[in-house]
């Protein structure tokens, strides 16, 4: 531990960014947070024109909720990091960086709201006192937080920024204006003019990216925010029931947060929610609360899993609108498929770029035997469990057929072959319509009108009463999907920590060494690939019944709507490779964000890309680091020593 702090002492320091007198910084942070929170109970604007109706005094609405939460979090974290008795659990690491992150989150929400009100309603006159209080309070909180002793890097390494980038940005702005007004069009031949007039966004994106990057560099050089791994003080010993209670409370809270996110009714609110969620997560990570919680959850693994499933199962009961329940069910499908992909990518390290095709195989196979009038096997209506089995088996067969020839080779062949398979699958499904090919899939129209599942007399298509609450069609399906998710979670958890799972990880780490340890690389890779395909097929069979139809364009390599192969891969990598909860969380976010940002239209993928880049910049190991990576942090006291890494490494084998 001493060596660890020495290591950090060389590169890091704990100093304020702004030197403020005495306890002024703390006071400002707390007061700012409280002000911002208090503003939520005031009116921010006088008309109800702005979505969410922020005109009431006395009760928060819409965007005021994130402001309230952010403000309170800032104030509490500031007090906790200061060492106020009874609050230490909120900031066990004692780092003040969390306060800054929370304050920045509050600032982002409040200023975003205020600016959105001003712009949409045309003028600052539309701001009520509450809006002013929110803006000033959150700014005060940030100034205060900057005066607290923060963990900072001593030096900032940055890639040099060539000044001619400004020129590029300037030219792009001129072109944007020129093409927008038309006079610059004279410079280009008429044939290609639409190329410019229809892609004006490009000339906006270029300066935004360049200036944004430069701004970030300047900010980074000024703030120098870093992260010092402090050993957490031993937690106060709680009785086991209390710990379980804490876990339950955390999941209940999590359910609340997710529900808020899913049921945001307009884009502005979702953006506010997202801004706060990102910064609050960063704040809790810096404060050590997340580390403390994960200690707790690893101690009570069964309880944690149970609580997570209970929270997911409770979700449809808390929703009045079926739309949001459908979103929930789709998130579950997407997340389950991502977890299946995690076997292939996260454990065995095989890059599968056409994974969604296995989902499609499962979905089509199940749809064909589901009794749909559009299926070529019209009369065939197999019971649901059998249809699921057929879906999984069909995917298994395809997995083996694709994997067997490819996995014998090392290198990136698999990525290429799976990418091809993904495309071939979609195109084949489009063409097996009886005209361009044999009649099997009904071509681009797909297999529609798949009858609802009926299990033991329980019709999934109709609402059912459970005591006081009613569960609609999608609620039924959500619970059904939850069972499939549970199966995949159990399979993943058990296999990952077994002889075969260890062999996968060994292959991923060093294939030559793994083979020298007696592992038949081809065999175990094929098992991983086939298992991944089977799990996708399983999910696909359910998906076909939830959606009630399958069509080729649902299964693309990349597209704005998940699940597609690119998004699945992103979910795994974002969430954390090799973990269970990582892909589930990653998938939930990746589903929700595009679904909620639809109002951005063509900018949606751009925004999504920027978000991905930011995440990979700040948390390359993914949202949820796996057990082994966690060990890495706990072993910071050991000097990391690798073997000599000269080029002789390749000499020793392969």
């Amino acid at each position, binding site marked *: 531990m001493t060596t660890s702090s020495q290591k950090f002492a060389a590169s890091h320091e704990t100093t304020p960014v702004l030197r403020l007198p005495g306890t002024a910084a703390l006071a400002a942070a707390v007061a700012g947070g409280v002000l911002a929170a208090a503003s939520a109970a005031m009116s921010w604007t006088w008309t109800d024109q702005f979505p969410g109706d922020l005109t009431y005094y006395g009760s928060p609405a819409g965007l005021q909720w994130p402001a309230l939460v952010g403000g309170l979090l800032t104030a509490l974290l500031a007090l906790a990091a200061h060492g106020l008795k009874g609050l230490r659990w909120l900031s066990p690491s004692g780092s003040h960086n969390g306060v800054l992150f929370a304050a920045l989150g509050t600032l982002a929400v409040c200023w975003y709201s205020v600016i959105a009100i001003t712009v949409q309603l045309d003028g600052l006159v539309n701001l009520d006192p509450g809006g002013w209080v929110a803006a000033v309070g959150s700014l005060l909180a940030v100034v205060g937080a900057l005066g607290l002793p923060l963990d900072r890097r001593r030096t900032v390494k940055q890639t040099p920024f060539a000044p001619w980038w400004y020129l590029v940005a300037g030219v792009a702005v001129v072109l944007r204006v020129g093409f927008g007004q038309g006079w610059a069009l004279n410079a280009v031949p008429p044939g290609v003019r639409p190329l410019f007039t229809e892609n004006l966004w490009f000339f906006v994106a270029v300066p935004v990216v360049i200036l944004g990057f430069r701004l970030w560099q300047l900010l980074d050089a000024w703030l120098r925010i870093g992260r010092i791994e402090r050993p957490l003080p031993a937690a106060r010993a709680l009785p086991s029931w209390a710990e379980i209670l804490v876990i339950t409370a955390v999941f209940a809270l999590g359910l609340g947060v997710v529900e808020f996110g899913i049921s945001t009714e307009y884009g502005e609110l979702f953006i506010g929610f997202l801004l706060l969620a990102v910064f609050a997560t960063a704040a809790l990570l810096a404060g050590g609360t997340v580390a403390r919680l994960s200690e707790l959850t690893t101690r009570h693994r069964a309880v944690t899993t149970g609580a997570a499933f209970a929270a997911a199962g409770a979700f449809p009961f808390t929703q009045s609108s079926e739309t949001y329940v459908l979103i929930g069910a789709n998130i579950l499908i997407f997340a389950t498929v991502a977890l299946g992909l995690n076997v292939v990518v996260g454990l065995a390290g095989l890059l599968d770029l056409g994974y969604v095709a296995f989902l499609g195989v499962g979905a089509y196979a199940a749809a064909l035997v589901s009794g749909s009038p559009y299926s070529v096997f019209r009369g065939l209506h197999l019971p649901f469990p059998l249809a699921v089995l057929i879906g999984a088996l069909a995917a298994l067969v395809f997995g083996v057929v694709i994997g067997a020839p490819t996995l014998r080779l090392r290198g990136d062949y698999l990525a290429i072959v799976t990418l091809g398979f993904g495309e071939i699958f979609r195109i084949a499904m489009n063409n097996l319509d009886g005209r361009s090919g044999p009649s099997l899939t009904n071509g681009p129209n797909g297999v529609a009108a798949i009858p609802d599942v009926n299990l033991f007399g329980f019709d999934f298509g109709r609402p059912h009463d459970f005591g006081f609450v009613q569960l609609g069609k999608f609620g039924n399906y959500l619970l059904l999907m939850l069972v499939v998710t549970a199966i995949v979670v*159990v*399979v993943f958890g*058990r*296999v990952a920590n*077994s*002889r*075969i*799972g*260890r*062999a996968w*990880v*060994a292959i991923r*780490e*060093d294939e*030559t*060494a*793994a*083979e*020298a*340890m*007696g*592992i*038949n*690389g081809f065999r175990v890779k094929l*098992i991983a690939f086939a*298992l991944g395909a089977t799990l996708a097929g399983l999910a696909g069979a359910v998906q076909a019944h939830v959606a009630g139809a399958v069509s080729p364009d649902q299964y693309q390599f990349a597209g704005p709507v998940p699940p597609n192969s690119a998004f699945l891969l992103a979910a795994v990598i974002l969430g954390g490779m090799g973990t269970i909860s990582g892909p589930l969380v990653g998938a939930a976010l990746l589903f929700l964000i595009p679904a909620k940002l639809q109002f951005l239209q063509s900018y949606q993928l751009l925004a999504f890309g920027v978000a991905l880049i930011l995440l990979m910049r700040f948390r390359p190991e993914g949202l949820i680091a796996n057990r*082994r*990576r966690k*060990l*890495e942090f706990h*072993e910071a006291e*050991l*000097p*990391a*020593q*690798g*073997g*000599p*890494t*000269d080029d*002789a*490494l390749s*000499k*020793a*084998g*392969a």
Partner: protein
Amino acid sequence: MTTDTAPAAPLAETVLEATDVVMRFGGLTAVNQVNLTVRQGEIVGLIGPNGAGKTTFFNCLTGLYVPTSGVVRYKGQVLPPKPHLVTQAGIARTFQNIRLFSNMTVLENVLVGRHTRTEEGLFSAILRGPGYRRAEAESRARAMELLEFCGLSGKADHLARNLPYGEQRKLEIARALASEPGLLLLDEPTAGMNPQETRSAEELVFAIRDLGIAVLVIEHDMKFIFNLCDRTAVLVQGQKIVEGDRETVQNDERVVTAYLGEPLEGTTTATEADQ
């Protein structure tokens, strides 16, 4: 008289028998017509200047390379050139450049080494029946024993990459031993170690021999080799120029020339290499 060690040695079972092994890379003959036998209970050394082809010879033995020609037998059986089948048959190895599974824990590394001696497949892992639990517990117990044997018992839950260098080498040996080999190939096990660590590595190799495992070891540290080995073979430019005990090897002038870096023109090895 009858208990004299010298006549007893030929009676021991032959573990490894490499016959006329040749390995060519394009125009370069890295291993040229090498014959080598290792018997039960022996520690055999393999030395030679850098680039002599020692590691390449190991790779030919373990199936990492398919020899251009020649046969490798383990306990009388011809080995297929597939690394996993070689390990299955009973030959385990370490690497000159440590090749641990660096993001796995120390215990997991050894458990991976047990792969060939266990057979739980996918389904038993999913179902987790009593048989599976028993096998897994046994594997763990065995792995912990091996860690203790190699002096790593306190480090089971550390990440392999975070071990100090000397312990990484020991872990590679523990991982190799987990496959319950009859022959252990060590490629420069003391490279980069301080004298103290080298001493403990020596003891470890003796302890391994006492388990009844034959050892073939590549090393540049002559003191280590001559302390340890019953027999030493010298490889120069892919050819075995001499094999025998300490005196034979040390007094051979070709060995001396090779190690002093004399140009090889006019020596016997050069004329052989020309052929």
